[in-house]
């Protein structure tokens, strides 16, 4: 069997490990336009912060490809997938045949049209290792950095470089930060904390026009900067899949087996859309655990095994300057909120199920909540009053605990 | 009571250098001696509540605790001891009888320690139990006076009266469910099963969960008849009629309502929360002939398939009583000496009534032989067997087997604090409080009991081998293997042994 994987990040690693759990022999070829062994993209902010190194960012040991018997084409870009002839064409002119193909092409930064943007010299995205290296090369302790976008990427970037620059200003059209994962109260709490760490926010505002070192805001003000980071959002790389005939919505559409609509072609990771069990809606769940699980599922199925990943849940673990934020699921439902100094906690319940949560400051054992969401545990089978106090296995019945902890079948 | 006349018996010493305030002591003390002071971040003690059970000491991970005798004393008096004075204060305060638990702790003579065991030298080889078979199997029960033969001349083996087969001549003696916990009972039952011996229900009936251990269970019928019914009698391998108990000869029992939980109530067949009171005598046994009737009633009820044990306390005329029992139809006599334990007994009774088991045993065995009825019954002795040497001495004096209870409890963790009667046993043994009961994990408990008895068995074998004896029956009643030290003529005569050097 001839496996080809487009992309070389978490989904690809999951896929390789998935294939090898079933098929120790088949040929695996990985093609990526990045010249690096698989590394963790979310770690680029930590790299700039100094809490990791390029070496440690690799998500698998150095001998991973060798041990897994994987052939790599790194730094080469796949330009076309011919689903009829079952071959991938590379920008170098090579054609790589496949029996099974995984499209794990990830996403790319979305840069909206902004007037005068072309005048800015030092402007960066913040998605890849190359992005980080490029940004790092221009930073000085006097740099005034302007970040457009108060989402996860923008704010992690802000945290990552805070110690090495003069000032940071974050502009966002939305009136609060991290709107995709936090509610208003949560946003406010996190914003306050980040603000206390020397980052200035200009929210509900946007850049009307750029000059080389100045951004004129819609609200009328202006921000002088030396370095610009645009972190407005990302878009899935779906083009190759679409050309190959795969059904594409917001992302490449995959089922629970990570299969696309074209036989023999699978997809996984940030380029895909799948069903979010907390809402029932199909969406792009561009988070690392999903990428791995989808990739692994794809790998097993590509190799003739059987695996299903049917309980994708949006979730995020993120921290800024020591304040940790853990969230999961959707926020539509009855809310149970608890606040105390430095702590914000919100549980969302709907249809007798835990649908989502936001934990800020006090995050211990959050996975117990996540598992209730993921396993769609009916809340009348657990002691939810205890769970409201804190995540704890005590809330389960003794029989369930005997299974979970005592080795009972 | 405005004035506290008494002084705490113990002192809790906590080494502040070692204490890490982990609060294990606090969590483990049902008497609430220890507490945590959040202001100072340190542990405190209220030693007046301490019974010296050592639970905290045993669990303290940094060995920061010591329980010592309180050095505070009343003015010393060679006649009026500390205890005498304390007990008077307590009685003056309460107006009640003093209660105690476990066996007589007073410094009466310990005859075991004045008896020494023989070993072979030159003329007769000692036997190495590691190399040669060394047998401890024992059968308890009445032995027929003559063989009978089948028409083909072979020996009739089926006519033998019911017997108890023991792989080691050590049984666990009666401790009722109620006086000790479910987990303690389970530990005993499982250990008996694994060891090929027996445990004894005591007078509290047999919990429904433990019927499966029936082949290794002796079911007791005592004066209160708690939990006695047909299935119960059928469940056991033998039935024991309890006439008396070494710790409290002549009186009955009293288990307070607090210990009569749901399960205990169901097992004893009495209402929950009511006191379980055993009368002093069986009210259907006012004479030896009445005993015979009960023996045969029980035999009838169980179709003569189970040996009947009659258990008596060792009292002054024990030999004559035993002679009567041996002619009553009973198969086995159990004699309980004055060191025997109890879950609760009036202190004065425990400390002053009964006689030492060594003398009782020697007298009974000799008397039954003189009357040529020793084969009518087997003899089990109980009440103060402390180790394998005591077992060897007991058997050489004439016992067929021994009952152990206190050593079994100690193996399970008991520290002989002797406050069973208050029901707050920190070791999960003499309590019915669920949070305390769970402290005794029978998976651990039964293995410790097995270890104990196996260890004793090995020691017994080693001592037997030293004597050149390779089967326990050759040691039974073999009093020449014993010598006394520091005993007077009368004691030697009763024990039927010679003095060392003779």
């Amino acid at each position, binding site marked *: 069997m001839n496996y080809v994987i487009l992309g070389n990040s978490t989904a690809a690693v999951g896929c390789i490990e998935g294939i090898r759990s079933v098929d120790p022999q088949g040929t695996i070829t990985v093609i990526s336009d990045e010249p690096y062994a698989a590394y963790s993209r979310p770690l680029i902010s930590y790299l700039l912060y100094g809490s990791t190194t390029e070496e440690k960012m690799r998500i698998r040991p150095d001998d991973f490809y060798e041990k897994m018997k994987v052939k790599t084409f790194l730094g080469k870009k796949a330009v076309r997938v011919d689903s009829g002839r079952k071959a991938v064409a590379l920008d170098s002119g090579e054609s790589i045949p496949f029996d099974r193909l995984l499209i794990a092409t990830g996403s790319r930064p979305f840069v909206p049209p902004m007037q005068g943007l072309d005048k800015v010299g030092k402007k960066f995205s913040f998605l890849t290792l190359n992005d980080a290296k490029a940004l790092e090369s221009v930073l000085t302790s006097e740099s005034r950095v302007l970040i457009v976008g108060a989402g996860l990427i923008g704010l992690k970037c802000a945290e990552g470089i805070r110690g090495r620059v003069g000032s940071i200003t974050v502009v966002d059209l939305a009136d609060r930060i991290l709107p995709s994962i936090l509610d208003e109260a949560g946003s406010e709490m996190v914003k306050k904390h980040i603000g206390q760490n020397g980052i200035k926010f200009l929210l509900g505002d946007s850049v009307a026009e750029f000059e080389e070192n100045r951004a004129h805001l819609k609200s009328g003000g202006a921000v002088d900067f030396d370095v610009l980071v645009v972190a407005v959002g990302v878009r899935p790389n779906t083009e190759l899949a679409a050309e190959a005939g795969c059904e594409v919505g917001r992302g490449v559409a995959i089922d629970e087996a990570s299969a696309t609509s074209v036989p023999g072609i699978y997809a996984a990771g940030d380029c895909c859309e799948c069903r979010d069990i907390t809402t029932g809606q199909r969406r792009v769940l561009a988070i690392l655990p999903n990428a791995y699980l989808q990739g692994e599922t794809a790998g097993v199925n590509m190799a003739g095994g059987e695996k299903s990943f049917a309980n994708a849940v949006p979730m*995020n673990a993120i921290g800024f300057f020591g304040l940790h934020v853990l969230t999961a699921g959707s926020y539509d439902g009855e809310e149970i909120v608890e606040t105390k100094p430095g702590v914000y906690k919100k549980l969302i319940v709907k249809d007798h199920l835990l649908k989502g949560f936001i934990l800020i400051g006090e995050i211990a054992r*959050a996975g*117990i909540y996540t*598992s209730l969401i993921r396993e769609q545990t009916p809340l009348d089978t657990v002691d939810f009053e205890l769970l409201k106090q804190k995540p*704890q296995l005590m809330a389960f019945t003794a029989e369930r605990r005997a299974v979970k902890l005592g080795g009972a079948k | 009571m405005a004035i506290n006349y008494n002084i705490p018996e113990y002192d809790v010493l906590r080494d502040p250098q070692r204490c*890490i305030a982990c609060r294990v002591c606090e969590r483990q003390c049902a008497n609430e001696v220890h507490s945590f002071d959040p202001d100072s971040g340190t542990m405190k003690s209220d030693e007046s509540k301490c019974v010296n059970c050592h639970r905290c000491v045993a669990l303290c991970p940094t060995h*920061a605790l010591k329980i010592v005798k309180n050095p505070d004393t009343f003015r010393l008096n060679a006649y009026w001891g500390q205890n005498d004075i304390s007990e008077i204060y307590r009685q003056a305060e309460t107006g009640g009888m003093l209660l105690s638990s476990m066996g007589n702790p007073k410094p009466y003579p310990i005859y075991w320690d004045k008896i020494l065991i023989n070993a072979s030298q030159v003329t007769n080889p000692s036997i190495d139990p590691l190399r040669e078979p060394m047998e401890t199997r024992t059968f308890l029960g009445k032995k027929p006076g003559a063989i009978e033969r089948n028409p083909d001349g072979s020996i009739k083996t089926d006519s033998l009266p019911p017997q108890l087969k023991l792989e080691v001549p050590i049984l666990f003696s009666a401790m009722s469910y109620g006086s000790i916990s479910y987990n303690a009972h389970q530990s005993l039952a499982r250990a008996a099963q694994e060891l090929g011996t027996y445990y004894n229900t005591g007078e509290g009936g047999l919990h429904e969960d433990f019927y499966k251990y029936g082949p290794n269970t002796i079911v007791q019928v005592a004066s209160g008849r708690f939990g006695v019914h047909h299935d119960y009698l059928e469940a056991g391998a033998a039935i024991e009629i309890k006439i008396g108990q070494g710790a409290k000869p002549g009186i009955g029992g009293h288990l307070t309502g607090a210990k009569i939980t749901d399960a205990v109530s169901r097992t004893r067949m009495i209402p929950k929360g009511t006191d379980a009171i055993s009368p002093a005598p069986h009210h259907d046994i006012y004479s030896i002939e009445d005993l015979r009737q009960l023996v045969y009633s029980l035999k009838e009820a169980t179709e003569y398939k189970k040996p009947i044990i009659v258990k008596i306390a060792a009292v002054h005329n024990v030999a004559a009583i035993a002679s009567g029992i041996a002619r009553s139809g009973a198969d086995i006599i159990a004699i309980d000496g004055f060191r025997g334990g109890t879950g609760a007994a009036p202190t004065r009774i425990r400390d002053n009534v009964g006689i030492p088991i060594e003398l009782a045993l020697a007298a009974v065995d000799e008397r039954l032989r003189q009357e040529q009825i020793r084969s009518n019954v087997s003899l089990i002795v109980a009440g103060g067997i402390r180790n394998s040497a005591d077992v060897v001495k007991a058997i050489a004096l004439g016992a067929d087997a021994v009952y152990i209870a206190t050593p079994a409890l100690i193996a399970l963790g008991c520290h002989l604090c002797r406050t069973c009667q208050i029901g707050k046993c920190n070791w999960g043994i003499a309590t019915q409080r669920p949070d305390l009961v*769970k402290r005794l994990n029978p998976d651990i408990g039964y293995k410790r009991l097995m270890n104990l008895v196996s260890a004793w068995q090995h020691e017994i074998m080693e001592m037997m081998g030293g004597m050149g004896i390779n089967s326990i029956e050759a040691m039974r009643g073999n009093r020449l293997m014993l010598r006394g030290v520091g005993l007077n003529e009368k004691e030697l005569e009763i024990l039927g042994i010679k003095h060392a050097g003779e």
Partner: protein
Amino acid sequence: MKRVYVNEEWCLGCHLCEYNCAFAATGETDMAKALKGVTIHPKIQIEENNRISFAVSCRHCDDPICVKSCIAGAISKTDGVVHVDKSKCVGCYTCILVCPYGAVMPAPDGHAIQKCELCTDNACGEPACVKGCPNGAIVFEER
């Protein structure tokens, strides 16, 4: 594969496992010296409520979601032990977010996580919690 199993029925809630765990992690030989005046951060934790208590520590799952979810590739499973490479861990707490047992926790310094590694990360030989449990409530067994 040997695992730590919890016999809830026998847990006394004495918390000794937590102290033994914390002690084992110090590498000291004297617990009093190691833990005196210290707030402990054990990798095994007791849950207690209404006389029920039990210890929770990493289950070393057959299909460990923490390993799959770790954004830094810092968690791996070898020879049945789920292991954290603290030098790779950036402390994002995704593992805390996904562990269904709540068995992963921030390390005391806050920059990484910690979890039970069956005392393969200290010189105990067998898990200290198991060794020190007074009532067989935590066992390390092949099942």
